[in-house]
């Protein structure tokens, strides 16, 4: 295996959880809801994915557990913010804290146990092709799923009626409501989709990335995913590019270090956030960009009766 190929493989592994969580959050935010609880949904997904794989012996069922548990957390968020109109920012933060605590409690019995790895697929002949074999045809299903999600979300958001409705709800919920769209229903579905993606992203960590359970193993990746959505100015393909960029920067940093190039690792750890702030500054200087891409109703609660 060549070094270049090997680096690419590592980058894919590092980027996929970011991509999964971010593409879900993108849909949530496009519908006008700001869910800061990605980290919390992710870590619950990680522990439940691990638990599911242990209980059933199948990492695929583990991934399903992760997905469903992420949706469970999202449902709670939806109930609080959409139904009871609680403050979205505070609820999202609370969801993260809840997730971190809850996962630690659930996972206590799993500490120190090796997990079951969700391995890459094997296609006869194709997977063994030189150079591109493992890269294109030897990944695990979640990698392909994450890429399919980007394509799917991109298509649905910008090429279908359903996408138009989601964006309408996110941009002007009153108008959407006046047109007869059920704003809350759309937002519920978006929030659940986001939870499923975040849960799956967590499952990716405990089933593929590092098949084990340790408390707090998401280590801030949920926050990076949130930053990524802004970095990508709410565009799916840019989320894809951003996730791979952030993943690659992390990996290349280690290679540079191992080569003896002295880059302060603190700087590299901060880079995703610095990049996001830079993007925020750039887009807020350009009004057209802001107006085109930022969901105008982002974070604003909707109460039909008022």
């Amino acid at each position, binding site marked *: 295996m060549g070094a270049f190929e090997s*680096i690419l493989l*590592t980058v894919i592994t590092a980027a996929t959880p970011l991509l999964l969580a971010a593409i879900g959050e993108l849909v949530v935010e496009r519908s006008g809801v700001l869910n800061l609880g990605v980290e919390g949904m992710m870590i619950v997904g990680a522990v439940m994915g691990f638990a599911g794989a242990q209980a059933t012996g199948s990492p695929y069922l583990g991934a399903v557990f992760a997905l469903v548990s992420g949706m469970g957390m999202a449902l709670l968020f939806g109930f609080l913010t959409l139904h009871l109109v609680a403050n979205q920012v505070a609820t999202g933060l609370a969801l993260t804290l809840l997730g971190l605590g809850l996962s630690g409690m659930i996972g206590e019995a799993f500490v120190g146990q090796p997990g079951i790895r969700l391995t890459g697929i094997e296609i006869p002949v194709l997977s063994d092709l030189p150079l591109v074999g493992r890269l294109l045809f030897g990944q695990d299903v979640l990698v392909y799923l994450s890429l399919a999600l980007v394509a799917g979300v991109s298509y649905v958001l910008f090429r279908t009626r359903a996408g138009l409705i989601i964006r309408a709800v996110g941009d002007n919920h009153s108008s959407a409501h006046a047109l007869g769209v059920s704003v809350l229903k759309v937002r519920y579905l978006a929030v659940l989709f986001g939870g499923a993606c975040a849960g799956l992203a967590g499952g990716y960590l405990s089933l593929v990335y590092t098949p*084990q359970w340790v408390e707090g193993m998401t*280590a801030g990746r949920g926050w990076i995913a949130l930053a990524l959505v802004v970095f990508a100015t709410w565009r799916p393909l840019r989320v894809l590019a951003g996730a791979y960029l952030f993943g690659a920067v992390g990996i290349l940093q280690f290679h540079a270090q191992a080569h003896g190039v002295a880059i302060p690792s603190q700087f590299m750890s901060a880079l995703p956030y610095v990049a996001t702030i830079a993007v925020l500054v750039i887009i807020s200087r350009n009004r057209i960009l802001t107006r085109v891409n930022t969901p105008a109703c982002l974070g604003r609660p909707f109460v039909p009766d008022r």
Partner: protein
Amino acid sequence: MKKLFGIALAAALGLGMASAQAEDKLKVGFIYVGPIGDHGWSYQHNQGRLAIEAAFGDKVETTYIENVSEGPDAERAIERLARDGAGLIFTTSFGFMNPTLKVAKKFPDVKFEHATGYKRADNVSTYSARFYEGRYIIGQIAAKMSKTGTAGYIGSFPIPEVVRGINSFMLGAQSVNPDFKIKVVWVNSWYDPGKEADAAKALLDQGADVISQHTDSPAPLQVAEERGAVGFGQASDMIKFAPNAQLTAIVDDWSVYYVNRVQAALDGTWKSEDIWGGLAKDMVLMAPFTNLPEDVANEAAAMTDKIRSGAFHPFTGPIFKQNGEVAVEDGIILDDGALLGMNWYVKGIDDQLPQ
């Protein structure tokens, strides 16, 4: 309202009686910096707490507070344990040093033990473990097992504790192969399985075939297992995560020390001390030598005995710094002060130490 007050009073009295009953028991409190589920540093301290319970049964009662951050919160947490009647309190992270001393001043009758610190008082002991002893042994093993002559080393933060470990590892490796190379990568975290795994992959991709780590998760070992490389467990025996890749592990074992100190407190012989114990005091253990040729395993066991008996010290001169300057004269053993403040690499390490 009156009734409510009565209930509260009764409850308070009840509590008072309960704590009066508990008086004859020694209450032992622990403050952990991380979750006990980290399978690393805090996990091992908690194993020590469980050992106390197993050893003394009804004679002691243990409590702990986990996830205490190293700031103003720490003082409150420690004080809470002291107010709850703890007679002996272990604060298990470097950053708890000043809070521990502050609370100790307020509670002169409570005994405190602070891990890895250097400030003491009449009722505050300090203790730490000489993990570098184990690092010398794994350095020798690494040099014997490596085909490429290069080891990858995953560091957390460039603090003396970690730098000392890297140097000790390198000195061990050089005693076998003077041209041995080491690649160091800093992940800037004690604990991020994903990053640790990425770092391990990067090191393996760059020609290292042995991985050593000074971070807490088993992720690097899992990567080694997957890639057919070898490595060493950290803090606890991680053989379950890498049955074919773990050669041995440097295990933090606080249980013997904790049981001894609780015994001393019960006997009334406890006094403020500074304990920096290693293999000899059973505070550092080597996990079984596995996946090794018999002669390498035997030599490692022999070296372990040699260090344990005091016949050999890893930092015995001559030792040179990177620029060739003499750090330790021939035949001299580096003193503990210099070990504790170590901020230089030994000759042969090509990397630059981040400052």
